[in-house]
């Protein structure tokens, strides 16, 4: 095999692999959209492809929207609240740990990082529920905001600290000579320069809060309070699964995330590669 054909073969393999990954990523999405337009009968007779457009069952989407509409509002409140809380705490924390030398600085940082190793999720369900219950926040969206916001801040501090340390310290020194105090340095220098990273962290935290199933399932009682993942379970019939309605509900639940991702994709990619290349 000549060198050139060897290279071509390698390229071909790479593309084949990528196509394979894309196929598996998009097939569920495709199936979800396709099934959302079918009745159960149509699904049974033709499960793998669209029927004629005249036969599309839009009633599934109406039913889906009626079911998950207000869950979306709840999810938006929880996810946005969680992002705001997480950033409000982690930005000043990262700034102080990255920029200021004080006795015990590393100790504080590593103590914070050590909390990442504490058991979370299912292992801490009982204690978390007891804590929230003692705060009187059961069946309250504020409990989810609190848990998601605080839960995400350690990894945010970890990532942000690295990023802030890469901002030339002369910029902060120059700002302090220009008359900027700490808050102003954070607001006018750090925030604009960390935009991509903060944006990425915000998106990741948003997704985490949006997709969380366990906590809302345990903490929320009233139907009016449910978030999307719990709400979607309500579409899951007890005896007969209405696949079309279920998939329409899932599709509607995915729309806000798709919109969010389309608007922030550039930010997201920049944030993920930030610091990789000296710019």
């Amino acid at each position, binding site marked *: 095999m000549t060198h050139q054909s060897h290279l071509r073969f390698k390229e071909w393999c790479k593309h084949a692999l990528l196509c394979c990954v894309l196929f598996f990523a998009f097939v569920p999405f495709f199936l979800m959209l396709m099934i959302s337009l079918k009745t159960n009968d149509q699904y049974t007779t033709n499960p793998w492809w669209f029927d004629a457009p005249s036969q599309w069952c839009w009633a599934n989407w109406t039913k889906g929207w009626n079911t998950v509409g207000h869950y979306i509002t709840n999810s938006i409140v929880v996810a946005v609240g969680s992002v705001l809380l997480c950033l409000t705490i982690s930005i000043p924390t990262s700034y102080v740990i990255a920029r200021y030398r004080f006795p015990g600085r590393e100790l504080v940082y590593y103590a914070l990082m050590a909390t990442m190793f504490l058991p979370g999720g299912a292992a801490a369900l009982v204690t978390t529920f007891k804590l929230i219950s003692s705060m009187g926040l059961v069946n309250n969206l504020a409990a989810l905001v609190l848990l998601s916001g605080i839960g995400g801040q350690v990894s945010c501090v970890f990532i942000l600290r690295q990023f802030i340390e890469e901002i030339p310290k002369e910029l902060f020194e120059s700002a302090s000579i220009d008359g*900027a105090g700490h808050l102003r340095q954070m607001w006018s220098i750090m925030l604009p320069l960390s935009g991509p990273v903060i944006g990425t962290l915000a998106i990741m935290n948003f997704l985490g809060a949006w997709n969380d199933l366990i906590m809302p399932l345990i903490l929320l009682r009233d139907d009016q309070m449910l978030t999307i993942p719990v709400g979607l379970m309500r579409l899951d019939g007890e005896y007969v699964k209405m696949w079309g309605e279920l998939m329409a509900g899932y599709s509607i639940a995915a729309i806000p995330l798709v919109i969010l991702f389309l608007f922030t994709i550039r930010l997201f990619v920049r944030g993920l590669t930030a610091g990789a290349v000296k710019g």
Partner: protein
Amino acid sequence: MAGILIKDLQKIYDNGYHAVKDANLEIRDREFMVLVGPSGCGKTTTLRMIAGLEDISGGEIRIGERRLNEVAPKDRDIAMVFQSYALYPHMSVYENMAFALRLRKMPKPEIHAKVMEAAKMLSLGNQLEKLPKQLSGGQRQRVALGRAIVRQPKAFLFDEPLSNLDAKLRGEMRYELKSLQTRLATTAVYVTHDQIEAMTLGDRITVMSVGEIQQVAPPTVVYEFPYNRFVASFIGTPPMNFVTGKLVREGDTWSCEMAKGQRFTLGMKERGKLAENLGKDVVLGVRPEHLHAPQVAPAGCAVCPMKVDVVEHMGDHQYIYLLLDGVEDTVIMKAPPQVKAAPGDIMPVHLDTAAGHLFAGTHEHAPNITLPAGFPRQQ
């Protein structure tokens, strides 16, 4: 406008490193003071302590009558230009220059007037909307200057502001800096390791080494009357030539006798401290322009044959690198272009020792014993 007084200034870092030792310096009102020295000599640390960016371990700093030790950088009323320019990358040129004024809650029309005035002064008028990354190195440097100017501070602090520029631009900016400081009539402290910048910009220069001030004087004085061997070696391009020998005397004639027996008769006028160094190791320092080829030598020089090693033609002059028997380093002669020399030639070199210096001892900071009596370290 105000002068800066530095008294017994100390800087000891947490790891015990003593960066600045007992520095005493008075920078006069409207003076352009250059702190010069090699890397690690404490010049930037001193500047950063004036700016308030480093804590002071001991001593005090005053601007005018005001003690600055406990004053935050933003309240010191100084402006600093950094080596990296430290322009805010997300702000336009205009916003960069207006930032400090906005923080002082100055009315917008006044900010605009000041920024426009500075922009005009620095020829930045048509760059105001651009981001720093869209500017050339020289323009960025101007923006950094403009940011300092609009503040109208009591003092400008410059931390090696020209070292990121190419040689041509550095020359242009040197001229602009000097004329700007003269026009603005503001006290300026300028840190550099480049002795050409120090010589050309400073009203006075402070030579620092190992955290200590070695000499403070106008550039010509530092050049002609170096306080010790370090100052003599650091100021001047190419550097001063040094030869080590013993101080000997025959009647009224004092000489520096080298290991191989060559003797350089000393022609210096100041001889007050020679007697106490008789028979001891001394270092004779002669600048390249005080070494002469036979055909252009003035009378009264010490003569010694040396072997030509390398000749560098510079156009209006040439540097001839010479080998002296028993001396490890080459000796450099600055000669007019008509002097003919080729590698391998043996040339009777004339040393104008009357213009040279004698240092007591062979260590780096050996004092110059041929300075006039009572010659001050700081003037």
